[in-house]
């Protein structure tokens, strides 16, 4: 099929502009709520251990997605807010393609004593170095400013 008629008027409108505005409130979830409430009070993290596969799940979960069993209450454990950089990249542009004032070092950090990882920003003036394997510690907001979201982790300091 081909269209038989075409719009040939060069002054005719071509586009209609708009957005898809809506705001969101995501409850952090049953496991997430416990995780973030712990961070609000402590300088450490929580993880959950699956009895079936033995994995220490981080961030902590209500269930193990591999074994598909619920994690019992007693399998919640405290782990240090420290880890090792597994992967990293250095961002020089922001999400809108504008140049950032400072390069931003984004890393995936394997959290100590767990089988899980977290994304974070590494605080360093040297954006040229290789961060792979670097030891890092979470730099948390002052306790009275913590609000129970990922933003409570400001960035990660090299140890």
């Amino acid at each position, binding site marked *: *099929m*081909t*269209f*038989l*008629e*075409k*719009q040939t*008027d060069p*002054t*005719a*409108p*071509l*586009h*209609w*502009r*708009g*957005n*898809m505005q*809506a*705001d*969101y*409130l*995501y*409850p*952090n979830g*049953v496991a*997430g*709520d416990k995780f*973030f*409430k712990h961070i*609000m009070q402590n300088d450490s993290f929580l993880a959950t251990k699956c009895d079936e596969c033995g994995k220490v799940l981080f961030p902590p979960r209500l269930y193990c997605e591999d074994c598909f069993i619920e994690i019992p209450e007693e399998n919640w454990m405290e782990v240090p807010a420290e880890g090792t950089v597994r992967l990293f990249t250095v961002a020089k542009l922001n999400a809108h393609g504008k140049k950032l004032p400072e390069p931003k070092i984004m890393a995936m950090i394997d959290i100590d004593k767990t089988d899980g990882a977290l994304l974070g920003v590494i605080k360093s003036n040297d954006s040229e170095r290789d961060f792979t394997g670097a030891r890092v510690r979470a730099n948390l907001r002052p306790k009275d400013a913590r*609000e*129970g*979201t*990922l933003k409570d982790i400001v960035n990660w300091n090299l140890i």
Partner: protein
Amino acid sequence: MENRKEEKPTYPKYAPGTHVRTSDIRDKKITYTWWEPEIQYAWSLGNAMSKFLQGLKEGKILGVHCHKCNRLIVPPRSFCEYCYGPTEDWVELKDTGTINTYSVSYLDPNANRIEEPILIGVISIDEAYPKPMGFMHYFGEMSKDEIHIGMKVKAVWKPEDEREGSINDIKYFKPLGGGE
């Protein structure tokens, strides 16, 4: 002895989940993450819709034919969705029609309550076919008690210098008075 039927369990046997009330959020009993996405779009109009909006800007309602299905289509499109053939032969339609259905709304787009109701509905445009053939728009110059299905209506246009090639170049449809 009484022979009682054993009470069978009701499935689902339990109902997992934790109800959160608005007050739980206000009082920060649960933690949550807030996000305000920002995305802008520019939707391409395509040939048919471009021509239709250009027509509205000029104070005209345009329709287009599918001769195979014997349809005079409005809003116009480049193809007929039933036979999947191309449409052709554009015509200007009279800006009069019949109310096919309507509502009297006390809700704004975000479900907030409004005092003065909005009259909204579908207008089947007189010269287009088969019926119903038309589009959604507002109604004005009539009360919520006067509006009815089958009512004859006519478009009220914005002044020419305010028209911009939009469905809102028509302000609303008003009752088609006698003599018009």
